[in-house]
């Protein structure tokens, strides 16, 4: 899987927010990962750990007080240095399709789903002329199984599940090789979560139809704190804590055997109601006031003096005391 040319290749990505009074908030620090075509990488972690900032950095949507470093290559383009014109005209919608967190807030409230789909089709595809645009919008709706009878409805007239499908349809119109899903299942009930991630998986496996699509399938970077959804869809998992990716590993091994090697990933799984249901003690640290060593050490029962220094990333893991025994035992 990793031999294929990645769709997205992130190297040393860091984002700092400059706050009033000269304070600096380290939202993302030194992130390295690839997303291959046909692959889903799930980025998981507690709220406020920097996941969504990472997504905003990839789309060039960081606020003005943010500084980013490193690189994020999508084909020949570095997303971090691209100017707004390039991002607007070639990246958003065309190279990266965004499946938003809250479709109800993402869709335009005063226009019908059909009109939003037609506008997107006209802007992103070669369809010209009223009939062709209408047909292409209809096809885009069909692709996500959005019922044709609901196309003339406004967003507030749709259920959460249908609004999510409409937003996904918009994300797929440009046949982008990379899909970026930011908490696509927040607030949905379990059946809808399952349906939404299964549909996303289908679009990952189906791949861009465009002739110049780079290989079999789209890449999907899914940002989520829903571990059940991540287990259902992901090929690989990146665990983020306090702005750093502390573990990057195969999803099957992470959720099954041998389980997470980083004590934080292990703690997250132990908190699930169908496992031990015990919380990790304490709370995540403030991103503006991180310790110099391992940020998880204050909450970790394996921590020793060694944890006062920052653990290097070796084999996709940043920990001085990786867990070795099987999580399920």
């Amino acid at each position, binding site marked *: 899987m990793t031999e294929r040319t990645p769709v997205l290749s992130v190297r040393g990505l860091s984002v700092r927010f400059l706050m009033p009074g000269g304070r600096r908030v380290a939202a993302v620090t030194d992130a390295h990962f690839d997303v291959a075509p046909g692959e889903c990488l799930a980025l998981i*972690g*507690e*709220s*406020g750990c920097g996941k969504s900032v990472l997504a905003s950095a990839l789309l060039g949507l960081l606020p003005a007080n943010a500084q980013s470093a490193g690189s994020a290559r999508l084909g020949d383009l570095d997303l971090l240095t691209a100017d707004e014109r390039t991002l607007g005209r070639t990246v958003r919608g065309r190279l990266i399709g965004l499946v938003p967190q809250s479709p109800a807030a993402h869709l335009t409230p005063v226009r019908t789903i059909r009109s939003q789909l037609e506008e997107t089709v006209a802007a992103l595809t070669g369809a010209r002329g009223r009939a062709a645009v209408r047909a292409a919008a209809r096809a885009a709706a069909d692709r996500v199984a959005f019922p044709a009878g609901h196309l003339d409805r406004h967003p507030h007239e749709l*259920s*959460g*599940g249908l609004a999510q499908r409409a937003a996904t349809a918009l994300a797929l119109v440009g046949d982008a090789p990379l899909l970026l899903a930011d908490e696509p299942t*927040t*607030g*949905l*009930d*379990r*059946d*809808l979560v399952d349906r939404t991630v299964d549909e996303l998986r289908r679009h990952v496996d189906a791949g861009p139809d465009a002739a110049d699509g780079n290989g079999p399938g789209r890449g999907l970077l899914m940002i989520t*704190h829903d*571990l059940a959804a991540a287990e259902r869809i992901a090929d690989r998992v990146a665990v983020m804590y306090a702005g750093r990716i502390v573990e990057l590993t195969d999803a099957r091994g992470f959720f099954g055997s041998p389980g997470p090697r980083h004590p934080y990933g292990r*703690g*997250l*799984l132990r*908190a*699930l*109601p*169908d496992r031990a*249901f*015990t*919380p*990790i003690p*304490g*709370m*995540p640290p403030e991103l503006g006031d991180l310790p110099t060593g391992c940020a998880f050490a204050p909450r970790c029962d394996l921590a020793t003096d060694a944890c006062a220094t920052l653990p290097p990333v070796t084999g996709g893991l940043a920990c001085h005391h990786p867990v070795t025994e099987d999580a399920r035992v």
Partner: protein
Amino acid sequence: MSDTPVLELRALTAGYDRRAPAVRNASLTVASGEAVGLLGPSGCGKSTLARVAALLHRPDSGALLLDGEPVRHWRHRAPRAQRTAVGVVFQQPRLSADPRLRLSDLIAEPLRATGRSQEIPERLAELTAGVGLTPDLLGRRPHEVSDGQLQRACLARALVLRPRLLICDEMTAMLDASTTAALVAAVEDYRATTGAGLLAVGHDRTLLDRWCDRTVHWDDVTAGVLSAPGAV
């Protein structure tokens, strides 16, 4: 006391339009000290039911009993004794917290509103530790804390008057696994020391089955079958 259910709903119908009620003929009982999970899909009306039970929405018909006493008035017209017997935590902490209040004032507000300000220092100290907040967070306003931290404060606010019944409407739907487990543990600690009843409304069967003594499905609650402990 132990024989009287802390909460009883009898054939309750409620909604925002009398011609199309969101809740139709719902019946449900929470025994004293019992934890009941109410399971239903998005949009089924379970939040409306939770609002009625929390005295925040007047039903169109049916009866609601708190500790065996029928409820006759809702919202600001509810008598204080009944209003303060129920604590409620909502799904979205951002929408249920006044953005101008520091967390300490957010948590203490129910004590001020009921003329019990002298209890604030003691309760604040107990609850801060109980819900896993740290004292340095108490001076912050909602926009300066995370969703998980704000929800912890909202739970502390719901517990500050020591309610006999706690209603949690999708309390953890926006939260990660660890914060979810921490908040549930805080609720259960409170219930273990006070014997309070719990109605936990949600869509996650795994969570409710693990958390509650029994889980009832929305379809059974509204089917006209009076659901009582033991009557599975």
